[in-house]
Structures are given as C-alpha cells and as structure tokens.
C-alpha cells in the first residue's frame, strides 16, 4: 500500500495539508468507493487501524469487557464508537494505544502489528485526548503542547514554532494563551488545548474518549465544528468515543454502534444507520426524529450559499440609502469594520432611527460557518426571524447567506434520496436472498461443480 504512511511518519505542518485539502466537505462521501485513493489525493496523513479478535478480560470478572472485536478503520476517516455506558467503548479505545493491554487478538496500525511493540513508543505516535482535557495544571499551555514533540526529540526552535501553529490551528490566539495555566482557561479552551497537545507531534492516529463530554452544549457544538474543520485540513485517522448519538452523527464518517461487551451492532455511515438501522438495538439508539437528525448530516457548505446586498458601517449614509432603495430585497446586511455581520437593516429603519446607523436595524442574533450542520442553520434562521442566516468564515467575516427556501429544498431532496436509497437497499437484500435460495436449491446437484 503505497499511500499508507508509516506510523513513524515524519511531521508535516498543518498549512501544508490545508493547501492540499479543500475537496468535498465530508470525506465520508468517499469512504464507500475507494476512500483511501480519494483522500490520498488530499494529502492524507492518517494511518489504517485494524483490530483483529481484540479481547479484554479484566481479572476477576466472569465475562470479557470487550469480546473479540474485528474492525478495519481506513486511513483518514473519523470512526465513532457509540453505545450505552459500560458497553466497553473506552476499553476498546484504550487497547489501541495499549493503555489497556489486550488479553487476546491483534492490533495493526498502518499495517504494522503493534500488539507487542513498546507501549511508550507506540503512544508517542498516537494522539490521545480525553474528557476534561487532561491538561497538566502545573504547566503552561505552551509546555503542555510541547510535551510530545520534546519527548520525540524535535529541536527547540521547531517546537516553539509548532506550539504557536497548534494554538492557531485550534482557534486560540498564540500570544494571548501561550503563557497561561490551564486553570486560567474556560472548559472549552482547555479542551482545545487538549486537542492541540494530542496533535502536536503530528501523529497519524488520534484517539478521543468523550473529549467534549464535560463542556456545556453550546461550547460542545463549537468544538465539534472545530474538529470537523481541523479534520478537513489534517486527514488524521480519528477514533472518537461518545455515548451521544447526535454527536456521532455529526462527526462520524462511519459509526460503530456497540452493544454490551463491545459487540458491533452496526458499523456503517451515519446515513445508512439513520435510514437502515440493522436491528432494534440500533433503532433504539437512533431514537426518535430520524428526519431531523438527517439535518445533522449535511453541512452549510453542501447547500447553495447566496450573495446578499451588504453595506459597511463606514460607508457613507447616502450609499446605504441608495442600496436599500435600489436593491431587489427590502433588507440589507450591515457589516462591522472587520467585515462581520452586524445588523439587518430594513427599508424605513434608517428613517425611524433618524439616519443613525448605530440605532437603526436589528442586531444579527446568530450566524453559522460553512461547517455548521443544516440543523444549526435551521435553528439560526428560526431565531433570527429574517428568514435567512448569515454564513461567516473562520474569523467571523461575512461570506453569504442561506435562506429558508434553500434549506427546505435541501431537506426535501435529502429525504427523497434517502427514501430511494432505502428502497434500493431493500431490493438488494431481496435479490441477495433470492439468489441464496436459488443457490441452495441448486446446491444438491452443484457440489461437483464447486
């Protein structure tokens, strides 16, 4: 496999892979048909992970906590382990970096059997991020991030540059956060630093154990969006544990729904699990509202983002009047000095505010990025009650809008496509069954042929 990087692969910068990225949003779309080739073209840095009959029997317990798991994880994909509490998700995950030693089976990373490798060396090549960040409170943010690069012997100057780069990558201002201690950060910021630390030495594989479990829902949403953006730039192989099915849907290229003893109930794309749950256990886990959850699977980048008339807060008032009068819409978007959406201005708003931009219009209540899900977008449209939501770039700058009509159309198309998929899947199953029956009937006489 030429495209599979060696597990001890040399570090590469995020910028490098960012430039190479920028293909279709969800790499999951490529997983069905030779995903490895597709993502190789995008400068993939991930490695495959194969679990073979992986088993863990804790001493003193009758049944194994993880019972003979077989799984192949492709390079560069995000696989989510989801399942009820105590089903063995963490145990399975921690066997991949041998924090828990398996009692049976093999683990292969990038084709290399690591089941008997020195665990300390192995772990330096596997990023590890956990709930509540696991940052060391007596070290500054910079020292926390620098730990693994130091251990693997990077030169000092390179480490310093890398720390800044990683902070920037996870959306924290290096100058401001570099010298802070973990307790001087919010929960969400700590989690970002935790991810930065896990990625610092550019490991091909990243393991995350309920990393966003301890932060508030809004922050969690942001962190999830960030992870998606990050992954589009980096193409790591990520194994992510959660008990939250919505999180699994939002993040996963593929989801492994696990039942007790880490048995795989279904291992498939979120779309397939939502539309074709394998059994009652999976349906129970998917829960109600599959149609709404479907909205979590599509991102703003996948629907049409339209232009919208805008004015800058520094523009002369006359221009604002002209735009309002001449425009095809009766509303325009006012941007602040840094080009970020600020207010919606209707015709007449300025008149009522006696020509003062400071007082006119209604503040923009919510915006979305291209990585936001359609569900987020729908929610923003509903709260902003302008019938549309502004789409912003990485630093909050205006990029376009998505309106209600676009959303509705996309949802209809999606549901229709899913319905067709489901029918096709049904057909396929029937065909397979028919084929089998046929083969069985012929089986008596066909023994000699085989």
């Amino acid at each position, binding site marked *: 496999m030429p495209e599979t990087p060696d597990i001890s692969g040399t570090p590469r910068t995020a910028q490098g892979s960012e430039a190479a990225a920028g293909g279709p949003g969800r790499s999951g779309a490529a997983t069905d048909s030779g995903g490895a080739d597709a993502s190789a073209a995008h400068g993939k840095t991930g490695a495959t992970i194969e679990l073979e009959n992986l088993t863990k029997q804790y001493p003193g317990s009758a049944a194994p906590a993880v019972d003979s798991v077989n799984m192949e994880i492709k390079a560069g994909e995000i696989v989510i382990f989801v399942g009820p509490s105590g089903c063995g998700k963490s145990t399975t995950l921690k066997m991949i970096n041998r924090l828990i030693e398996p009692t049976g089976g093999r683990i292969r990373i990038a084709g290399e059997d690591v089941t008997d490798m020195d665990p300390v060396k192995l*772990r330096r090549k596997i990023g590890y991020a956990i709930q509540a960040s696991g940052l060391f*409170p007596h070290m500054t943010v910079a020292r926390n991030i620098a730990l693994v690069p130091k251990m693997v012997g990077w030169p000092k100057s390179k480490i310093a540059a890398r720390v800044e780069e990683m902070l920037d990558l996870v959306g924290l201002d290096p100058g401001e956060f570099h010298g802070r201690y973990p307790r001087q950060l919010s929960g969400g910021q700590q989690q970002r630093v935790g991810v930065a630390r896990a990625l610092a030495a550019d490991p091909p594989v990243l393991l995350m154990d309920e990393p966003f479990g301890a932060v508030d829902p809004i922050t969690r949403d942001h962190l999830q969006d960030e992870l998606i953006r990050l992954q589009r730039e980096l193409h790591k192989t990520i194994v992510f544990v959660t008990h939250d099915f919505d999180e699994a849907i939002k993040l996963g290229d593929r989801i492994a729904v696990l039942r007790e003893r880490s048995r795989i109930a279904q291992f498939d794309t979120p779309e397939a699990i939502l539309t074709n749950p394998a059994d009652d256990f999976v349906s129970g886990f998917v829960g109600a509202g599959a149609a709404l959850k479907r909205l979590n699977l599509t991102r703003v980048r996948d629907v049409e983002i339209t232009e919208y008339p805008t004015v800058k807060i520094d523009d002369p008032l006359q221009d604002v009047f002209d735009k309002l009068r001449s425009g095809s819409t009766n509303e325009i978007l006012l941007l602040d000095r840094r080009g970020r959406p600020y207010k919606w201005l209707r015709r007449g708003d300025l008149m009522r505010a006696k020509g003062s931009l400071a007082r006119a219009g209604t503040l923009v209540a919510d915006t979305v990025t291209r990585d936001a899900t359609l569900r987020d977008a729908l929610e923003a449209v509903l709260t902003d009650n302008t019938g549309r939501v502004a789409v912003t770039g990485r630093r909050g700058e205006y990029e376009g809008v998505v309106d209600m009509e676009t959303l509705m159309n996309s949802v209809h198309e999606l549901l229709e496509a899913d319905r067709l998929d489901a029918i096709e899947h049904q057909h396929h199953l029937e065909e397979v069954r028919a084929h089998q029956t046929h083969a069985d009937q012929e089986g008596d006489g066909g023994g000699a042929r085989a």
Partner: protein
Amino acid sequence: MNFWEFVSSTHQQLLTDAYQHASAVFQCMVVATVLGVLIGVATYRSEWAGNLATLTTSTILTIPSLAMIGLLIPVVGLGVPPTVIALTLYGLLPVVRNSIVGLRGVDPTLVDAAKGIGMSRAARLLRIELPLAWPPILTGIRVSTQMLMGIAAIAAYASGPGLGNEIFRGIASLGSANALNQVLAGTLGIIVLALLFDAAYVLIGRLTIPRGIRA
C-alpha cells in the same frame, strides 16, 4: 544581670549554639526529606506498603526523644551520631505520610493522560506526579522541621550540638544567678530559629510551587 545583659555577654556562645542547632536540623531535614520522599515513592501505589510505611514512621515518633537518644548512645556513642540519627528518624513521618497522601491524591485522569501521550514511568513520576504532590510534601517538610527544632534540644543530653546545651546547663545549675537566663536564652533561640525556618519555607514554596497550582 538581667536577661539582655546576659545575652550580650554570652552572644558568642549563643550564636555558635544557634548555628549548630540550625545546621543539625537543616542537614537532618535534607536526609529525612530525601529518604521520606523515596519511601513515599516506593510505597504509595500499594495499599499495604503505604500503610506499613506510615505505621512504622509514626511508631518511631511515639518513642520519647530522650529514650531514643538514650538507646542510641550505647550503639553509636555520644555526640553528633545519635543526634543525627534521632533527628532524621523523627523527621521522616510527616514527609513520608504527606508524600504518600500527595502522590495518591494526584488526579488519576492526569496520570492516564500522561501515560496516554507516551510518558515513561520515570517521566510521569518526575514531571507530573511529584510536581503535583509537591505542595503537600513541602507542608510535611515544614511540619517536620518545626518538630525537629524542639527535639534537637534534647540532643545536648548526648553531648550533641545546639541550643539544647544552654537549656541543659541552665537546668543543671538551677538556683544560680544566670540559670533562668540561660534556659530562657536557649528556648527563645529555638523559637527564633523556628520562625526563621518557617519564613524560609514560605519563600521556598513561592519559588518552587508552579503558579498553575499555587493556592
């Protein structure tokens, strides 16, 4: 002769005794700290070993210091050796106990994280566990030092060094003109030394406890 006249007339002797007192306590504390932390590190992960270490060191502490020195004299002779051994043994308990408590108190998720990012056993201990356990360990050292200040006075009984000599001489000549002054000078000297040491520990705490975990 009032007390101050006594002090100024014997200040040379007092200073020598104070210096030797401080020096004995300091040196024994260094040994007790090293030994105590090593014992803590060796035992904290096992329930029974940790308890055994705490129990042993606390048993030593219940032996009256005079008896301990008395028992040591036939074995190691008079003077410095029994003083050093006794002080070191007494100094162990708070250090051992606080090392074990401190090391056991390190958040297990942090140890898990340290392991998970590929730190070796030694690196985990030196760079994560000991620094995080350092504030309680330092408290143990501080308590030990205060205790040794008093116990060191008994060393004079075995012809050991220190301010205990003033006290013992005073007691021996009770009724004579300067007996009380002598006892008072020795006692006050020990109190002043104890306060100075405590101030030093506050400073050491400031310098060695990382800002991120300082109270």
